[in-house]
């Protein structure tokens, strides 16, 4: 491949991964380089050396990147050929081959019913679980109060302390009203989930022919308290009108160095991009520690509930009641959300933790998007899904978590923490399985495609058995319906965290046919963004330098499939497909004159200022971590991430703003994610807007090379501290992220004022008063 197709030299004349046809000498050379890097990463993680040592030894550049030296960097010239890079060794496949294992469906979680204790107002878990109640205020409050009333901590046997470490509170949520669950009684949780994040179960593999992962190679979620994690990732089915309490236990190792070489044993779980209070958004600088839990209340609030449809009379603003009917909710049905996900957001370590397995998906069901393809009540759109359950059928509604990974030569998951540009893997994964196949019936299917990669973008099409692109219908972008389905044969670029919902009709293909989901997109070697779109023919041939180009998933048309909704039930090809894809899915929200406009530039200006006068980051970050990625507001000075700095402040609920994001740099792309609210995409500068974006609600926008995007946004219902950042999580960690402060809580709530910054530690939370950038504060 030619690394200079776009005219930018990416620092190498070839791709990052060396060809499998390379000489043994070159492969040894590449492996040595990776081993050296891994050795240094490990030494850093256990404090054997510091980044300062690396600077001193000349092994680290001021950008924080590993010096371009043979024996260290995949981009350094090979000793065997001056003009080609060392490269990175390919991940060993063992006996695995593509399309030789069935695709696992995501691990559906089973909810518990919660009841309300009328005396305390607490949510009570089923008795057999032995769980403490979930409360409006954090258990941290009890921990603090007990210490105040019973001096002598840590020897006072505080019953509210971390049960594993006996140090600090048992709940990671900060104490006091600022981190109380907003609108608790109004959105009292009716169901709950108990999950633990920790070492992966013994024997977990990406493919039966590959090496089993060590417990600390992958940290993912498992159902229950202090249990091991499992793959594939979790799936939670939510519905409007049924608030959820998700209790997450941190079951990772107590010692930071027990991390398999990368990953931080602290987490805050971001429910991307659900409409929740800041205390449950998972990005308010409230990571918690091993041994503790955090109660996230996922409210299922429909946006604009305080201003639109306040009597809950609009039937499209609703959720399924479980018995064929609907529960109306307040709010604007045009703001309904569907395909969501959840992932770690520990600032400065998000890429490592998400890559390591801290993620899952959440589908929200509503009156129109019922997950039942036959129930005809005039509200339900009857999209492909199934019919055996009242709502949330998954038989023909399939979540696809797309990602790329790499392993070291011993087969263990590998991540290069020295890259500040991006990380590309060479293993194509679907639901964390290596290039699987999926049996499908000759009928319509809905696919919810999530790009869960750290830096890799994708561009998908579906190849027919005779290698032609087939048409499909695009129905939702980032979980938001487009007004009218759009017929395509190739998706747009799909950046990190973007979700595309499509409907594929396999009915024209006879049983025995095989089709493929094909990635056409060639990435820049440095991971900064996409390069070229290949033709289907080129992509199908595969790319020896980048095995994630080409087919990633094979669809096999079969005559029957077992139900995943009702185990033991079998669906047959002869069963009529009564699902529909209506011509109208929702109603357009109009573009109106804004109260104000904002300009946000994402680039590499200056040297970053994440550290305070004391030299520390907020929250803590690796020693001498560099901050090459920065953000500017309204043309003012550039800043890198600091959780104690507010870059944008939203003064009131309901005000409509127009924001323009500009890619401040030259040759790369940034997928920018806005937490909490979606924006209606209006403008791409002087460049065209694809139909899949034009006037469509989104929460992640790819800026494109030298590109811009303008969207309309409105905040409401909840307030507090949220963030806005690049979702190339490597850029995010280094530290292209800013805090936004929403003074949009209900009147009288703490969130109508600027909230203090929580500073988590194993001993508990302390608060500081944040700095506010004047260019981001429109008050007076």
């Amino acid at each position, binding site marked *: 491949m030619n690394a200079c197709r776009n005219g930018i030299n990416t620092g190498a004349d070839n791709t990052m991964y060396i060809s499998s046809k390379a000489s043994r000498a070159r492969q040894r050379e590449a492996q040595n380089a990776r081993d050296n890097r891994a050795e240094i990463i490990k030494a850093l993680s256990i404090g054997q050396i510091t980044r300062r040592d690396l600077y001193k030894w000349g092994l680290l550049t001021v950008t924080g990147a590993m010096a371009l030296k043979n024996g260290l960097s995949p981009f350094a010239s090979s000793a065997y050929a001056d003009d080609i890079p060392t490269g990175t060794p390919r991940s060993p496949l063992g006996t695995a081959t593509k399309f030789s294992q069935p695709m696992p469906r995501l691990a559906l979680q089973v909810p518990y019913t919660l009841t309300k204790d009328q005396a305390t107002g607490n949510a009570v878990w089923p008795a057999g679980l032995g769980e403490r109640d979930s409360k409006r205020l954090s258990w941290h409050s009890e921990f603090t109060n007990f210490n105040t009333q019973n001096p002598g901590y840590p020897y006072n046997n505080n019953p509210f302390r971390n049960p594993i470490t006996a140090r600090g509170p048992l709940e990671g949520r900060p104490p006091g009203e600022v981190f109380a669950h907003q609108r608790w009684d109004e959105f009292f949780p009716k169901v709950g989930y108990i999950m633990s994040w920790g070492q992966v179960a013994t024997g977990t593999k990406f493919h039966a022919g590959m090496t089993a992962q060590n417990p600390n190679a992958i940290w993912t979620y498992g159902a229950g308290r202090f249990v091991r994690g499992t793959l594939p990732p979790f799936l939670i089915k939510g519905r409007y009108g049924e608030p959820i309490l998700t209790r997450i236990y941190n079951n990772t190792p107590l010692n930071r160095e027990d991390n398999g070489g990368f990953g931080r044993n602290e987490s805050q779980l971001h429910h991307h991009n659900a409409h929740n209070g800041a205390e449950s958004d998972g990005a308010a600088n409230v990571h918690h520690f091993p041994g503790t839990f955090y109660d996230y209340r996922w409210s299922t609030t429909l946006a604009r509930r305080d201003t639109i449809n306040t009597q809950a009379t609009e039937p499209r603003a609703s959720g399924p009641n479980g018995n064929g009917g609907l529960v109306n909710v307040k709010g604007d049905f045009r703001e309904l959300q569907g395909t969501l996900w959840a992932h770690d957001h520990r600032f400065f370590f998000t890429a490592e933790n998400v890559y390591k397995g801290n993620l899952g998906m959440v589908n929200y069901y509503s009156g129109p998007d019922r997950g039942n393809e036959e129930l005809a009540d005039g509200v339900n759109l009857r999209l492909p899904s199934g019919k055996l359950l009242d709502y949330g059928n998954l038989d023909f509604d399939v979540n696809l978590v797309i990602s790329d990974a790499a392993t070291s030569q011993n087969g263990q998951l590998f991540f290069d923490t020295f890259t500040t540009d991006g990380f590309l893997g060479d293993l194509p994964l679907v639901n964390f399985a290596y290039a699987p196949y999926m049996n499908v019936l000759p009928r319509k299917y809905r696919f919810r495609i999530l790009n869960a990669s750290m830096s890799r973008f994708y561009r998908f099409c579906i190849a027919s058995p005779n290698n032609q692109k087939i048409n499909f219908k695009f129905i939702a972008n980032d979980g938001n319906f487009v007004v009218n389905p759009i017929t395509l044969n190739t998706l747009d670029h799909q950046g990190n965290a973007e979700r595309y919902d499509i409907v594929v009709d396999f009915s024209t293909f006879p049983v025995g046919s095989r089709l493929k989901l094909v990635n056409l997109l060639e990435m820049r070697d440095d991971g900064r963004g996409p390069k070229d779109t290949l033709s289907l023919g080129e992509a199908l041939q595969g790319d020896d330098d980048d095995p994630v180009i080409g087919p990633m998933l094979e669809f096999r048309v079969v005559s029957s499939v077992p139900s995943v909704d009702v185990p033991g039930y079998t669906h047959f090809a002869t069963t009529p497909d009564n699902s529909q894809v209506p011509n109208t899915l929702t109603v357009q929200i109009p573009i109106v004159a804004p109260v104000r406009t904002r300009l946000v530039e994402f680039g590499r*200006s200056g040297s970053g200022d994440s550290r305070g006068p004391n030299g520390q980051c907020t929250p803590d970050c690796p020693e001498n971590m560099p901050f090459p990625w920065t953000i500017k507001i309204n043309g003012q000075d550039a800043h890198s991430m600091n959780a104690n700095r507010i870059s944008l402040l939203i003064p009131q609920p309901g005000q409509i703003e127009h924001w323009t994001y500009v890619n401040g740099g030259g040759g790369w792309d940034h997928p920018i994610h806005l937490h909490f609210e979606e924006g209606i995409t209006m403008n791409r500068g002087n460049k065209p807007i694809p139909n899949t974006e034009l006037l469509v609600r989104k929460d992640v926008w790819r800026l494109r090379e030298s590109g811009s995007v303008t969207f309309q946004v409105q905040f409401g219902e909840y307030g507090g501290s949220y963030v806005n950042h690049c979702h190339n999580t490597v850029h995010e960690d280094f530290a292209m992220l800013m805090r936004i402060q929403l003074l949009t809580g209900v009147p009288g709530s703490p969130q109508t004022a600027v909230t203090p910054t929580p500073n988590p530690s194993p001993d508990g939370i302390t608060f500081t008063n944040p700095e506010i950038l004047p260019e981001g504060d429109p008050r007076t």
Partner: protein
Amino acid sequence: MNLMSTLRLSLSAVLAGAAVIAAVSASAQTAAGNLTTATPAATASGATVKRKPPTSATAEMVNEAIQRSEARAAKGRASGITERWGTEEPFTYNPAVRRFNTDQQ
């Protein structure tokens, strides 16, 4: 592989003769016509106070930002060198060149 032996053996050879990438440090410079920068203003007493920066953006500001980004991309193409660190290059903003079409939506 032992770290120190790594550093002594494989990396010591590497260190010799290898060029360390120099950081490019440049301050932001924009030409006249930049409508976005808050500049210090002199008071009657001679003291300097910082004017409150704009809290709402204009189409001009967006236009300039896009032109600046395009200038960097053009420089990258011309030089063949990827922007590495804080490289804000001087460029001349031309208000007559419209890169931001407010009528697109």
